């Protein structure tokens, strides 16, 4: 049992060590370079943690089965881009919208923050509407119907982006998306500020989700995941609650897409393939432990850490056989990690807590060892 508890800290430590040590060694002991690298790394982890958190609401808490995170990611990122950018100019750059100028009135430097807030909101809304539309035909049915429908909608969205060239630029990425507050910083230093913004945003989300999940509303969601029939029998409208969980998750994914676009400065259709934009988040959630928000964040850190390490390894003088395959090997490892976690450690690195409500926590102090065995609330939803 003791050895069991040590797994998570050990994994975290190893990943953190490698992510720090390899760039330090590669840059020849350059602290500033390593710090800059780590900032980018942590920003990405923060952004992906937003998606994993959202997926955790959908799957970990509500038991709704979304295999099309890419669709909501894409819709969020593009919506934020067209809200924030200035209108398209020139013959070769075509996209709709471009409200950046409109949202930059002369007061309190509004151009530095207003378009971004509106952009995040619009991204969440667009993504939420998509989820709402999708939930009507699918949420009453068995879980796998929603899974295949979400794969379909992700494919559809990507096709629309590519085929409708005047909508959001087709295969040409939307470039030059401004970043929030970037007027106040040197171009080289802005990423540190952005990391802070991502962490604050993630913190706010985490706080809100934790509160929501411990509320009576959240209890219904979790009950739904455990046993739909019993929940329905106690008078809860199963469909309505599942829809709320699904749409809320999608809204957060859309917001995550917006933050991704601001951080990257460009969005193109190639980002939103099924492996990168859907499967990776599932890997993060399964590794971290579904049904636990901290697990979602830990999972994002570990999986993205492994991803980054594999990129870094390519800098070394690897044998050619490995060099041409390192990315495919990484993909294989991540795919197999999911299967192995489902088989061997379905509860993930951070198991779900069996806490019922914040009110009960204050009343009854349960010793932490009195938890039921981890299988009971495991990732598989057994």
């Amino acid at each position, binding site marked *: 049992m003791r050895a069991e508890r040590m797994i998570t800290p050990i994994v975290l430590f190893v990943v953190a060590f490698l992510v720090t040590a390899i760039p330090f060694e590669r840059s020849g002991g350059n602290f500033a370079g390593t710090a800059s690298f780590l900032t980018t790394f942590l920003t990405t982890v923060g952004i992906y943690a937003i998606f994993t958190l959202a997926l955790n609401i959908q799957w970990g808490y509500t038991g709704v089965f979304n295999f099309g995170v890419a669709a909501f990611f894409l819709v969020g990122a593009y919506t934020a881009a067209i809200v924030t950018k200035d209108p398209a100019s020139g013959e070769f750059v075509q996209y709709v919208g471009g409200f950046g100028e409109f949202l930059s009135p002369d007061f309190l430097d509004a151009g530095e923050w207003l378009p971004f807030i509106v952009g995040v909101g619009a991204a969440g809304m667009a993504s939420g509407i998509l989820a709402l539309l999708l939930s009507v035909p699918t949420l009453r049915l068995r879980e796998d119907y929603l*899974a295949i429908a979400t794969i379909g909608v992700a494919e559809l969205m990507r096709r629309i982006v590519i085929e409708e060239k005047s909508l959001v630029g087709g295969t040409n990425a939307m470039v030059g998306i401004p970043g929030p507050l970037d007027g106040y910083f040197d171009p080289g230093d802005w990423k540190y500020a952005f990391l802070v913004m991502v962490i604050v945003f993630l913190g706010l989300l985490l706080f809100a989700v934790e509160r929501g999940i411990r509320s009576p509303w959240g209890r219904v969601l979790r009950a739904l995941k455990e046993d739909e029939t019993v929940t329905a029998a106690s008078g809860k409208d199963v469909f309505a609650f599942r829809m709320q969980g699904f749409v809320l998750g999608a809204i957060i994914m859309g917001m995550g897409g917006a933050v991704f676009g601001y951080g990257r400065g460009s969005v193109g259709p190639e980002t939103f393939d099924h*492996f990168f934009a859907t499967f990776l988040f*599932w890997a993060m959630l399964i590794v971290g432990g579904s049904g636990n928000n901290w697990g979602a964040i830990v999972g994002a850190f570990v999986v993205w850490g492994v991803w980054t390490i594999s990129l870094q390894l390519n800098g070394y003088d690897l044998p050619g056989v490995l060099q041409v395959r390192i990315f495919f090997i990484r993909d294989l490892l991540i*795919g*197999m990690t999911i299967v192995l976690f*489902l088989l061997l450690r379905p509860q993930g690195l951070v198991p779900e807590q069996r806490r019922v409500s914040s009110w009960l926590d204050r009343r009854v102090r349960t010793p932490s060892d009195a938890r039921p065995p981890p299988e009971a609330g495991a990732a598989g939803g057994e």
Partner: protein
Amino acid sequence: MSTYADRLRGNIRVFNEFVAGPGLWVLITLLFTYAALFETQLFVIGLIVGSVLALGSIGLTLIYGVMRFGNFAHGDLMMMGAYVTFFLLNGTILGQRRDANIGVGLNDLPAGTERLGDLTFGYSFLIGVALSAVVLAIVCLGLDRLVYRPLRQRGSSIVTFAIASLGIAFSVRALLLIIWGPDPRTYVSGIHKAQHYPFDVVLKTDQVFIMVVAVVMTALVYLLLFRTKLGKAMRAYSDNPDLALVSGINTDRVIFWTWVIGGSLMAIAGSLLALQANLKPELGFQLLLPLFAGAILGGLGKPQGALIGALVVGVAQEVSVAYISAGYKPAVSFMILILILLIRPRGLFGDAN
């Protein structure tokens, strides 16, 4: 408020029962008649694509019927079958800089590549596909032993199975990329002349061959399911596992043969597909949508439904090219899927439940 919702639900049920079912058949008949009359060429191509999809959809639906989960690795395993055939034919894998060849392959058989009639391949291809079917059946059985059976024994939910199969799907794709690389592959190179048929239809002989094989395989599966004791057991198990168990049907045997049939069909379908298009690892996941659309349209768990569903999806996809950009082909299967889920989730042949 609840009374209104109840009434609505009742109406939906009536609609599903008496309007949507016959309505779907009418729609399909209209689509086929229209396509056959006005887009004959695309209609025939659609039937060919649909018959290949059908082999995949039938496997998918059988696995679903017996094991009750959607196999999201189906498309990628089909690609694996196609790549195994490719490897067996000429022994080529991705080397350090360019392709490496192990030097032996079925193409080295005496007169193995001598073209059969107007086809582009020789008998080595037929042997390759047969062997690939065996390999894929073994791969599927291995996956079942290592992954699905432990999950079954633990009584995992269908969702766990689905996520596991998604993990397998991406692992298989990565494996294909590691072994054969991302470049498109073809079985045979060279120009392939098309033949003219009545009604202005132009087809390559390979395409006719694809259709014939697909029809023969479907007939074999039909005979197996409806004319043998094993098939009876499989259908019984798929209809009602508990009742099947009580009647003394051996679950392990049913599951074993489901994987064998599903795996062989994957390899055959994948190889046939690669015969008329380039072989690419990414193709596997893109196949998933039409495969599922076909299986769901026919009613999950119903092989005869999967056949018709896949043909409809194939025809609809190909005929759509005449009206919208070819890039929207996957969107067509998605639209069919959403339509079915909206008006009749149990599909054409599914049981009322």
